[in-house]
Structure formats: structure tokens, C-alpha cells
């Protein structure tokens, strides 16, 4: 057991944890940050993605002690109050969430990508999200959402152009 101090979405938390405790369990069980999901518990699905200081990490592969003295950001930290962030709004309007279980991770990952590269290419998006999976297959809608926020001209065709009554 040991004590750690972590700033999560701007709020400082001090907790006693087990030495082998995962950051995932620390966030979900001790701090009740339930937007952080898990589907594989071994770094394959990316649903437990959080931002640890400056990097996105899979919190099922990180020990909670490694976050001691650091800052963690989850989807709750993107638009803490008031309006949704542009990428959140675009996810809604493009229908980029189906069952929604993976959505917090995708929102965080694409939000961070857009912070880093306001005009990501398709290759940038593929690389930035290569660790994430979506079983409902919302990839095309996510692509459209990212394209809308970045205002890129090489955007995929919007639903209105790619869907037509025969």
C-alpha cells in the first residue's frame, strides 16, 4: 500500500493504493471516473485510454503509482462545463456513436489529435486511433466528424452526399 497524489481532470486527489493497482482500477474504482471503460484488460481495445501528462496511454497497462504527481485527463476533462467541445458536437451530429461503450476513448483520442494537429490527414487519424476498436463500425462517421472539425478539404463525403434515395 502507498499513497499517491494525482490531478484528474483538474481536481487533485490523494488516495492510498495497492502497489500493483492499475491506473484503470484507480480511476474507475477509487475515483469513480466511469467514462474510462475496458474490454480486453491487456492493451488491445484502447477503451481505457486516458491522457497522462502529455501522452495518451492505455490505463490498463499503467500502474497507478506511475501517475503519482502527474495529471490525468479523461473525456470528462474535455468540456467540463457548459458547451460540448467541437469534436463532441461533431460526434453527435454525424452519428459517430452507436452503442457508445468505446465512444469516450474515441472522443478523447480525436480531441487530442485535433489539439496537436488541427488539420490531420487520413494517415494521421489512422495512426492516432490505431489502438482503438469500435465493433459497431462507426469509423466512417468518426472520420466525418474529425473532418468537419478540422475543416480539411480532403474530407470524406458527408452522409448527405453519400446517401441518396434511389
Amino acid at each position, binding site marked *: 500500500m502507498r499513497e499517491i497524489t494525482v490531478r484528474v481532470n483538474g481536481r487533485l486527489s490523494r488516495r492510498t493504493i495497492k502497489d500493483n493497482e492499475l491506473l484503470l482500477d484507480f480511476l474507475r474504482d477509487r475515483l469513480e471516473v*466511469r*467514462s*474510462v*471503460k*475496458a*474490454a*480486453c*484488460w*491487456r492493451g*488491445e*481495445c484502447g*477503451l481505457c485510454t486516458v491522457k497522462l501528462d502529455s501522452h495518451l496511454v492505455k490505463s490498463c497497462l499503467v500502474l497507478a503509482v506511475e501517475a503519482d504527481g502527474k495529471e490525468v485527463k*479523461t*473525456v*470528462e476533462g474535455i*468540456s467540463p462545463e457548459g458547451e*460540448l467541445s467541437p469534436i*463532441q458536437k461533431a*460526434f*453527435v*451530429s*454525424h*452519428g459517430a*456513436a*452507436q*452503442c*457508445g*461503450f*468505446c*465512444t*469516450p476513448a474515441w*472522443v478523447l483520442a480525436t480531441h487530442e489529435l485535433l489539439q496537436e494537429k488541427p488539420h490531420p490527414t487520413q494517415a494521421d*487519424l*489512422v495512426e492516432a*486511433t*490505431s489502438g*482503438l*476498436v*469500435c*465493433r*459497431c*463500425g*462507426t*469509423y*466512417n*462517421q*468518426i*472520420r466525418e466528424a474529425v473532418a468537419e472539425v478540422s475543416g480539411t478539404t480532403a474530407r*470524406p*463525403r458527408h*452522409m*448527405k452526399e*453519400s*446517401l*441518396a*434515395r*434511389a
Partner: protein
Amino acid sequence: MTGEGSVGKPIPPEDTVRKVTGTALYTYDWDLPGTLHAKLVTSTVPHARVVSINLDRAKAVPGVVAVLTGKDMPFRVGMYAGDRDLLAVEKVRWAGHPVALVVAEGPEAAERASELVDVEYESLPAVFDPVRAMGADAPIIHERMEEYKHASVFYPVPGTNMANRFRLVHGDVEKGFEQSDEIIEDEFRISHVSHGYLETQNVVAQAFRDGTFEIWTSAQSPFIVRQIVSEALKVPYNRVTIRVPFVGGGFGGKAGLQWEALVALASKAVGYRPVKLVLSRKENFASSASREGVVANVKAGFTRDGKCVAYKVRFVLDAGAYADYTVNVSRAMGYSAEGVYEVPNVHCESLAVYTNKIPTTAMRGFGYAESNWVLEQVFERAAKKLGMDSAKIRRVNLLRPGESHTATGEKVREDVGDPRKVLQTVLEAIDWEGKAEPASQPWKVRARGFALCVKGPSQPPNASSSAIVKFNEDSTIDLVLGTGNFGQGTTTAISQIVADQFGVPVERVRVDPTRDTGKSAYTWQTVGSRGLFTDGVAAMRACDDAKDQILDLASQVMRLPKSELEVADDAVKAKGRPWLTIPLRDLVFGYVYPNGNTVGGPVIGRGHFTSSLNTFLDPQTGQGVPTIFHTFGGTAVDIELDLVTGAIEVLKAVQVFDVGKAINPLLLKMQLDGGFIMGMSIALFEKIKFDEQGWVTNPNFTSYYIARMKDVPKDFEARYVETPQFDGPMGARGIGEMSMISVASAISNAVFRTVGVKLNNLPMNPEEVWRAISEQKPELLAKAMESFGRIEAAVKARQ
């Protein structure tokens, strides 16, 4: 909003804001105060008698509260085959079969103790191949099949491993072969597939001393869960409450029996404390149910002019150790054998066969997706053999609404859809007549192909739905449905329909995201793309009922006959006299006269839907009406095949469906794209692998690969046809499952049509495709290798 209404508008699902902000809570996020944690102990052998289970070491672990075994629950449960045990009783039937459940104060103690349960097995001969399992010398996996409570529409064969034998006979198939000019004969195989829903199966259950149970579960169909639990625990249905919050994907895998009854019993065993069981991904693969494997043998006869006159097929389903839902999959595979075509002579046998592998269950498009894989390739091959265009052979055989009968003898009504227009639209969207684009490399081939499909929801004839429309004080509407919402958007679409019935904005209508068997309207199941149709019609009838109450009151207040009044634009209006109007707001909670006298009260409309058209199917011939509607559709692809590696890349996806009415084009597009991606992933990548003892060897997302962003086609083209269904809600039909059925066939047809290589086995992963090319077209591979080698040499030379 008045006038044009919200039906037909691309309105985003109302629950997406919760999803993008991380505030949508799933069963996985659910904890009750004092929750104990459960862990499964699973069999290490595929088929064995359980001699003894020693719990001493496990119970000695600090924090362990109880360990349950099959002795604590010596009964069978289930929905269709009724063959399931909750924990192994007497014997284990697959490596991974749960034999005990440890309940402890925390997950660590439960996990530690689960490793200390000592089970002594006496091995029995096992069988892993479904065709072998049908042999006379095969070990019998379910010795007491005759005691199982099968639903009456299934035909198990006790004394064998056949859990269901479905037969469809139409015309005289042998006579058909005599009339044929060309015969296509082949064997096709489909691998086991994981649903891959990202929220693993998980349950929180609490028993109470008053004999009631409360269960939170990640399930598609709360009312079926209640039925299974109540029957298993022998308690009245209203003593069991099933609550379903947000669900992290289902795809059929959460439609039937899961772990609810087991965890409910565990709660009772630990003194009525809540118990939570969360499956790991490995357990979800190895100890839960997936989509079955299939071996299909087909023989089809065609005349010179392309008419299919005989179709004989046998599907053998590798149902695994338990086939509770798979018996119905075999039935659907059988009656869907003919797809969108009218064939005069059909003989089909579809067998669900037990093996000592993981149990199997329903999955998106079940039966239809598998039969489509065989049928659409047979038609492509016949076209080539007859020197006929792929589109022409289909036109010759397509079902003609108003004239044709399906393979089950059902007359195809004129309003059920327009397969001819679907085909035409598919061809236009993929530019069928146009010249193919050149491949990006000399060792690659660019290819276009398509496949057609049709599907309806597979359900018992008496399956019903209901809906309640409740007005609130501010004239907003609580729409109470039973149908689940795990991404399909059905509740949004039905909200739009309801809003238009009263001429109010869609925001006025809300469906609570949680289902609760004590509070939600009954619906049989959330499966088979039935929700929009069945629960949509029920909701429209609930609106009619509410309107009737509103008009009764308005008639009294306005002193006009009811027949002269109508509900429109958020008000009651006198027909032809628009100045005589009362806003709904003044009526739906009772009308208050100026002196305070009040007449009427809160308006609650109710409606239901039960199909009056469905019938049982004849046990010998499979004739009858199995589904409530048919959605016709088709998929086309433009792909690039790498001859050197066998890898297939999809560049363009075309989806065309006759949806009757596009209630919400955004939701429609989400299903068409998502269904394509799932269909493509299953077509190209997905295969559950087994070792010689039936163990799943790839129970994770590294070696069981699911399509990611990099695999998604650059271009999606979706079109919809609107042939309104007379009895559908606003003319609509279901679409969710249909959208993945013809994807795999379209891809294999593209390959066969272009390079003549037959791909009989799913998935078409590089290994499978490369082997097929090297066996069937070695010259093609040699040429590709040569050009690849030339380029490689040139690159090396430059270095």
C-alpha cells in the same frame, strides 16, 4: 414544429450526448452498496464426467464467502432447446465449461480462490467436427436430450448429437436436376465468429428475503431474461425485475441466456448480498457463446437461359456444447436458403449438431448471412459457367412481388419491396457497365462484385410488442417502449413517428434509456431488426389510443361530434374550421373550465402489435410464413486483391436496401456503414481458432482481429429504395441486421468474377486467399510474383 414533421429527417440519436461526455452508464459501471464479486471456475477438459469437486482450498482463501457448483442448481434452463446448465452438472461438455462460481469480498480474492477449486475429471471421448459428430460411432454429448424442454417448432433427434433437424422441401429437386443444363456443386465452410461486443457479458444481481430478485444486466431482451430467470428459479415473473441500462453492444450475443440466473442464485447463497460477475475477454471467448461454424454442401441446377431449377443444400452447424438459440439459427438458415430467388425445386436440410466446443448462439443476421454465403456464390459461378452477366442471371431468377412464392411457399406481396429496383440501383452505384479502374500495382488486381440479400426477423408467431404513450403536465410525452437501444437508434426513430402523430417537435418525446421489466412496455425481444417495425406499429397504435381519449374530451369541451375533430399541429382542430382549436396542452391532463371544474385526466395511450400473418412451419416441408416482413437489399464492392500476399482491400462499399420508408436517414446510414464494416471484418479477418482439445487459442483482440480505422473503405455509397410496406410503421421495414448479410458474398464474387478463384471458406484472410490462388490459378500467382520480383529487384538495384 408543424407541417412536414420529423419523420424523414436525419435527427441524431437523443442519447449520444451522454455517450460523448462519458455519462452513459452501463452494467459494467454499476455497483450496489456491499457488492460481492464472482469469478467462474471453468473446465480444463473438453468432455468428462465430474467425479468430485473439492472446495476446501478455495474456501480457505480470506474474503471468500461462498463457492457454488452444479450440485446447487441441478436443473436445465434455456429458451429454445432448453439444454443449458448454469454450472456443469455431472459432466463437462467443452474446455471452458463453467463448473463452479466463487463469490468473494473483492475481485482479487475471487480470482485467487477460483484457481484453488480442485475438480477431478474422468475423461470421455470427445468430438470436435460437426460432420463426424453425426456419425454412428460419435460420442453422444447430450444423453438425455429427450428430457429437454424444446420449443415445439424444433426437431431434436435424441440418441444422436442433432439438436435440431430442419427440412424444407419445395417441388421435386431430382426432377429439377434432370431439367438442368449446368450443375454447380461444392462445399463451403464458415468459421466460428465472436460477436465482439465491447462490454463483456456482466451482471449485478441481488436476491431479497421477500422472494424477489433485482438484476442489472447487459442484455438485449430484458423480458426474455426475466422468463429464463423466473422459469429457472421457479418464481413468478413479477418477482423478478430485470434492469438494463446502456448496453455496450449485443449483435445477438446478448439476446438469450447469459449469467443472470446463476448470479441471482449466488446472491441468495451469500445471504442476499448483491453479487457482480464481469467476464474477462478470455472468458467471454472461451466460456460464453459465439456464432456457430458451418459446413454446407450444395448442388444447384441451372438451365441454359440461366433459370435455377433445382437447389439442394445441407447445412451442418457446429453448434458446440449447447445449442439453446442455435436450433433457431439452423431453422433460419434452412428457410432462407433461396434468398431473393424463386426456385421451383428446393431440398434443404439444416442440422444443428452438438460438438465439444464453445456453445453457440444468435448473431446479427443469423442463418441468413450463412445461407447467403453459399447461394450468392453459386449464382456467380453459374453465371460464369453459362457465359452470362452476373446481373442477368439474377434478373432471371429474382422474386417477383405480386406473383412469386418464397421457398417456404409464402406469396410475395407487392408492397414488401422491389428487388428488381434494388439490383438496378446496386449496378448503377458501382458503375457495373463502366470500365474497371487499373490496379495500383502490377501484382494486384482491381475487381468489382456484388451480391443480393433478403431478410426478415425470425420470431415465434405469437411474439408481441407493446408501447405506452404517457402525456406529462407540460404536454411532453414519455414514450414507454420495451425494445432495447444499443446503438441502432430504434427509439429515436419511433420517437419521430410518435411526434408526427400529434404534430409536435421530436424533442417533446422522450424514451428513458433504461429498460425495466416492471416499468417498460413488454416486447418479446430486441432481435432480428424487428424493433422499428413491431414496436413502431405498437407505438402508432398507442398514439391512436391516446388521440381517441383526447378527441373524446375535446368533443365534450368543444360541443362537436368526434367525427368532426382531428389531432394535428399540437392541437385538436375542427375539420375545415381551423379557428376552432384547442392546444393539446389544455387537454392531455384534463380540461379546466374557467370556474375550476375539470373534466378528463392524464392521457395514457397503449398499443400492441402481434403479427397475424406468421405461422408455424410444416415439420416435413418447412412450408409456412416464418417472418413478419422481408427487407431486400444488396452490396457491391470495388476491391484490390494482392495476388502475392492474398490480402484483399475494400476500396468502395455500396449498400442498397429497400427500407420501405427512411424514417431517419442518419440512423439508416449508420446501420448501412456499420453493418458493412462488421460484415467486411467477418469476411476478411475473423475466425475463432481451436486446438485439438477444442480450446479457443485466440481469445483476445490481438489474434482475433476486428477491423480498425485503417481497414475502412475510402468510399461509402448508400442508396435506399422506398416501397412502402402496407402494415409497417409509416411504411418502414427493419435494416440493422440486413446491412451485413451480403458483404462477404459480394467480396468473394468480385474475386471469382475477375480472376476465377473460388473462395469457399470464411474468413477470406490472406492465408486462405493465397492458398486458393496458388491451388486454382498457379500461373496467376507466378506472374504476379514475377512482376513483384522485378520491382523488388529494381528497388534493390537503386539502393
